[in-house]
Each structure stands twice: as structure tokens, then as C-alpha cells.
């Protein structure tokens, strides 16, 4: 294990660290989001897209977070599988719903954007499809975890699924790309010419950082909740007489 992780692997040290880190990340996220949104809403309208271009500042970071959270989920799952570490599992379990929310956000904002831009809510293009499959993966992970009562077994089954998904997701991405290149459909909307001038790039970057910080904060909070739940469960069991 890398030293930073090894340091945090101790639950007490983790709880001490996350106790102040979670709110710090939260404040950071709010500040960054305010700055990003301010810059975003004062940026000039796009000459083609008009005001709708501003959806980008919500949408693109959400799409980026969707993948980033999965990387976190898979990493935590790997640690939980190899070291049988409860904290790593709590991290994996806590990450999944957050990832699902970010993915749903990317899908919804994308759809909202697509309606005015493409004249349709949805097209089966490579990017969209692979995001949808990613969303299904999150749902599968959550459903699997929810359906196994025993903590240890639920953890291992979830970890195996997350790792299988980590192998499969690049294949999905690559396969939809391949499939799309075969059928040049009416779906190559990725004209990122004028969209990416600096006036857009700055707020976009800030929003991406804000999302990341928000994720960091929420993740820590949820991991803490998991740890507490486990401790409460152990205490209740100790109190119960068999």
C-alpha cells in the first residue's frame, strides 16, 4: 500500500483526518463553484448555442466525475479485496451512489442540452451509450451490495463486480466507438471549435475542481457514516444477549 493510504488505513487516524478534511473540502467546493458559476454566467453567449452553452459548466464536469468516481470505486475495491480492509470497503460502498448521482447528472444535463441543440433528448452515439452503460454498472453495484446482508460477503462480491466492471468499461467505450465509426450516424456533434475559448475554459476548469472537491467531501462524510454504522452495529451486538 502507498504510504498515504497506509496512514489512513487505520480507522482512528482516518476518522481524525476526515473530521476536518470533509468540511474543508466542502467549503472549497462551495467557493470554487461560486467562482466558476460567476465566470460562467458572465461569459458571453455562444454565437451558435446562445445561453444554453452554460449547461456545459454543469454537464462536462459531471461527465468527467462519472468516470473519476468509478476509478475511485475500483481502486477501493481492489484494496478491499486484496487486504480485506473494512475501511477500503466502506470507501467503495460510499463511492457508488455518488458516482451514480454524477452519472445521472451528466445524463440528465446532457439530455437537457441535447433537446435544444440536437432537437432530441437522446441519440445512441458512442459517448452517450458508454455513459449509460456506466450508469447501469453503478446501479448493478448498488443493487448487488443491497441484496447481500452479510457485510464481509457483500464487500467481496461488490469488489469482484467493481473490478470486472473496471475491465469491461474501457471495452464498452472502445466498442461503442468502433460501432459508431461503422455507422456514421447523424451524431457527430462534438464540434468543440469555438466552445473552448478561454472564457469557457476557465469556468469549466473551476467547476471541475469544485465537483472534485464536493465529491471528496461527500465521500469522506459517507465513509464516516459507514464506519459509524459498523461501530453502532458492533455495540448493539455486544449489548444483546445471545
Amino acid at each position, binding site marked *: 500500500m502507498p504510504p498515504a493510504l497506509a496512514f489512513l488505513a487505520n480507522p482512528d487516524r482516518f476518522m481524525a483526518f476526515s473530521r476536518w478534511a470533509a468540511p474543508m473540502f466542502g467549503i472549497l467546493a462551495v467557493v470554487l463553484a461560486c467562482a466558476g458559476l460567476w465566470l460562467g454566467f458572465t461569459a458571453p453567449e455562444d454565437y451558435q448555442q446562445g445561453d444554453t452553452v452554460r449547461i456545459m459548466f454543469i454537464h462536462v464536469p459531471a461527465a468527467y466525475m462519472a468516470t473519476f468516481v468509478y476509478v475511485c470505486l475500483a481502486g477501493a475495491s481492489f484494496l478491499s479485496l486484496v487486504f480485506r480492509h473494512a475501511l477500503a470497503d466502506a470507501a467503495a460502498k460510499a463511492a457508488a451512489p455518488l458516482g451514480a448521482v454524477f452519472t445521472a447528472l451528466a445524463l440528465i444535463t446532457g439530455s437537457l442540452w441535447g433537446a435544444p441543440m440536437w432537437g432530441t433528448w*437522446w441519440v*445512441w452515439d458512442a459517448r452517450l451509450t458508454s455513459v449509460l452503460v456506466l450508469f447501469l454498472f453503478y446501479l448493478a453495484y*448498488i443493487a448487488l451490495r*443491497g441484496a*447481500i446482508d452479510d457485510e464481509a460477503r457483500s464487500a467481496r462480491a461488490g469488489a469482484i463486480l467493481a473490478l470486472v466492471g473496471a475491465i469491461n468499461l474501457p471495452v464498452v467505450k472502445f466498442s*461503442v466507438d468502433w*460501432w459508431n465509426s461503422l455507422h456514421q450516424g447523424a451524431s457527430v456533434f462534438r464540434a468543440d471549435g469555438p466552445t473552448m475559448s478561454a472564457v469557457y475554459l476557465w469556468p469549466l476548469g473551476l467547476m471541475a475542481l469544485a465537483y472534485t472537491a464536493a465529491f471528496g467531501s461527500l465521500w469522506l462524510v459517507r465513509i464516516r457514516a459507514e464506519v459509524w454504522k459498523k461501530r453502532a452495529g458492533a455495540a448493539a451486538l455486544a449489548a444483546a444477549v445471545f
Partner: protein
Amino acid sequence: MSRLLALLRRETALAWGGGGGPLVAVGFYAGVVTMLPLAIGPDLERLAGIAPAAAFVALALASLLSLERMFERDYEDGALDLLTLSPTPLEAVAAIKSIAQWIAAGAPLAIAAPIAAIALGASPQHAGLTFVTAALGGLAFAFVGGTGAALALGARRGALLTAVIVLPLFAPPVIFGAGALQAAANGLAWTSGLLLLAGYTLAAAALGPVAMAAACRNALS
């Protein structure tokens, strides 16, 4: 009455599958609906043409998938014995099982159906019709499917035998339901399709439980 409620609660829980509940059902549906465009390719027009039909077929398959649990587990683990030893007639038990099946799978899927159809490119203006059709169709699938599941009891078979018994019986609701949706999409009259579907569902609800009860008694003896 409290007996019927207890049974309904148990059956719904069993059909629901504990964990994810409607999430799982809808996730499956979403998966099936995703697979079709993956296979067909992103040609919008072609997709929109088959959208309501595909949503309906996916509904049928989702119903099919959950059938095996309706009677077989109870048969193999002895719970079916208990279910017969009660003042509640076995016909009522069968009807409740079918309704629970619908609550756990059919209803969430009916809610998801319009969304799926729209995702595949169908026009949103028929969302209401899609919902009603899917809800009725799901009920028909539950009663008809239960009959197939009960008949396959005790046969040395598999889910596949149930499927083979059930698929021909699934054909009319698929034709009526998807036909109504297709007609609505083309601006034609769809009421007759819907009425036929409702009639079939009613008939299934009336006859299904009798057939199921007879098949169960036969398997037990």
C-alpha cells in the same frame, strides 16, 4: 382477509427479490432497451419505428424472467403444501401470486415503459397510452405466465420449458398492445387494440387462477 394480505405481502417480497426492488426491475428494463440500439445501430429513424414494440417485448421478457420463482421454489421447498392447507382456496392463492408478480415487476416496468420508448425515439405525446398498455399487458403476462409456470411444475424441465409454454400465450397481448402503440404512432385508431388487450387481460385474470390451481394440485399429488 389478514391472511390474504399476509400472502400478498410475502409474495410481493419474494417477487421483489429483497434487495434493489424496483431499481432492479427498471435496471433490467433499461439494459434490454439499451441492447437493442446497440445491436441495431444508432439509426434514429429505424429505432423510432420499433421503439414501442421493443419496449413491449422487453416487458414480456422481463416478466418471463421472473416467472420461474412463482411456483417452483414453493413446490420444491414444501411451502406449496402449506399454501394448500388453508381456508383460502388455491385459486385465490394463484391470483394473489399473479398480482404480486405484477406489483413487483409489471408496475415499475409500466412506469418505465414510456421513458424507455421515448429514449428509443418514440413521440412523448403517447406516453400515457404506453403506460396504460404496458400496465395492462404486464397484468396479462403475470396471469398467463403463472399458468405456464404452474404447468411446468414437477416436469424435468427448466425455465425454458415455462418459456415455451408461455410464449405462444404471450403473443396476443404483444400483438394487441404493441399494435395499439404502433397505430397511435402512425396516427391511426388505437382504441380497438387497447380494448382487445383489456379483454385478453380480463380473460387471463379469470381463467388463469383456475388453471394454476389445478396444475399445482396435480403437481403435488
